[in-house]
């Protein structure tokens, strides 16, 4: 193949590859720029909660369940906060396992503590494992004035005034059944409270690397990268051939 034919062949493929990569080069440049300046653009602070996006990432929004106390709701949303309607009543380690009420107070059992709340949702006191709450308690039951804390293996009776516990053979009583929070009252909470979100930085990074589309996306970006290398080589080759042609 003489120099002229070689140049034509090289330039033809250089053009073809360049044209086919037009959109991808612009896209990768923009996303790369965004990632390079992510701290400044605060991409990691932007949380995306779009249902379709979360579903694509396998992070379905779990409906928040709450406990209805007459016309009020007690629920846990976000990290550790326990809410009484829209007010933070206290904090404890999720999940909120069980809720029961006596005539004087509301008892909310979390993983690490039992919160004693007044009937209007004010925190009276919390009883933590450090203070003697058994570690494996799963349910709080109220039978008249008696409060029982039960676990699969055993049960204890709890004195809310002295915070003393003592073992009992059998526990009885009732707790409040959890139910989904009504959307009309707690729309904002349902959207933001369960904590499921994707940061914009993650989305841009996954789009840039092709991971957003799974293995096929990664392979596609690999091929684009390979074609960019070929584009650089054909570009260099075109320049070299051009120099050879000028000498001839």
């Amino acid at each position, binding site marked *: 193949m003489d120099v002229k034919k070689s140049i034509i062949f090289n330039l033809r493929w250089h053009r073809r590859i360049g044209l086919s990569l037009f959109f991808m080069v612009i896209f990768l440049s923009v996303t790369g720029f965004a990632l390079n300046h992510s701290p400044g653009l605060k991409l990691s602070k932007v949380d995306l909660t779009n249902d379709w996006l979360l579903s694509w990432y396998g992070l379905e929004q779990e409906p928040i369940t709450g406990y209805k106390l007459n016309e009020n709701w007690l629920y846990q949303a976000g990290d550790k906060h326990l809410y009484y309607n829209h007010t933070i009543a206290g904090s404890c380690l999720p999940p909120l396992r069980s809720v029961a009420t006596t005539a004087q107070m509301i008892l909310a059992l979390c993983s690490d503590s039992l919160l004693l709340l007044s009937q209007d949702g004010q925190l*009276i*006191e*919390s009883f933590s494992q450090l203070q003697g709450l058994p570690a494996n308690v799963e349910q709080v039951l109220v039978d008249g004035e008696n409060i029982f804390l039960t676990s699969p293996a055993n049960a204890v009776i709890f004195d809310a005034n002295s915070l003393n516990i003592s073992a009992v053979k059998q526990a009885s009583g009732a707790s409040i059944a959890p139910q989904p929070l009504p959307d009309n009252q707690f729309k904002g909470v349902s959207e933001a409270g369960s904590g499921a979100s994707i940061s914009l930085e993650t989305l841009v990074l996954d789009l840039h690397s092709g991971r957003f589309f799974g293995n096929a996306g990664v392979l596609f970006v690999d091929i684009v990268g390979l074609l960019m290398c070929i584009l650089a080589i054909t570009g260099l080759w075109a320049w070299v051939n051009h120099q050879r042609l000028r000498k001839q």
Partner: protein
Amino acid sequence: MFKSMLNALLLVGTALLTSLSSPMVMGKGVYQSGPDFIAEVFEQQASAKVLWLTNDIRQQAKYILGRPVSGLRIRYHQHGSKTAWILEEIGKEMPITIGVVVEANKIAQVKILAYRESRGGEVRYPAYTRQYLGAALKDNYKLDQSIDGITGATLSVWAVNKVAALALYYHSLTEQPTADR
């Protein structure tokens, strides 16, 4: 020669990293439960009592801590003029559980019962907590003794200072035996 030196360096580096990241060095953990602390202080002779936090008390406690207190009541144990308090205050991000014993309006013991922060756990050492012994509350609700800080544990030190002052304040609100007044 070079290979054996490299191996030795790697070994030392690994040992150093392991020791630095161990919970013992970081000071993270629960050291004593509340009931055990009370039993140790009073040897089972104390009576459990409750201090209800009225609005005035809450205002003063807020001034001492620099944030509103949670809860409507605080539990403490008392025997004679000695009271023991288990209080929590956030160091940087996580609460530190601190046991404070007050006798005759002066601190008799400070003990870190649980430390949950990743750094600053040095506040649990007796060499540090011993500084609080004999400290009383000034008129401005600060401790009347100067407490030496710890480099790298400033927020934890502040948290312990606040809790010590709060325990002294709460103690001043309890009913004391007549002979001690």
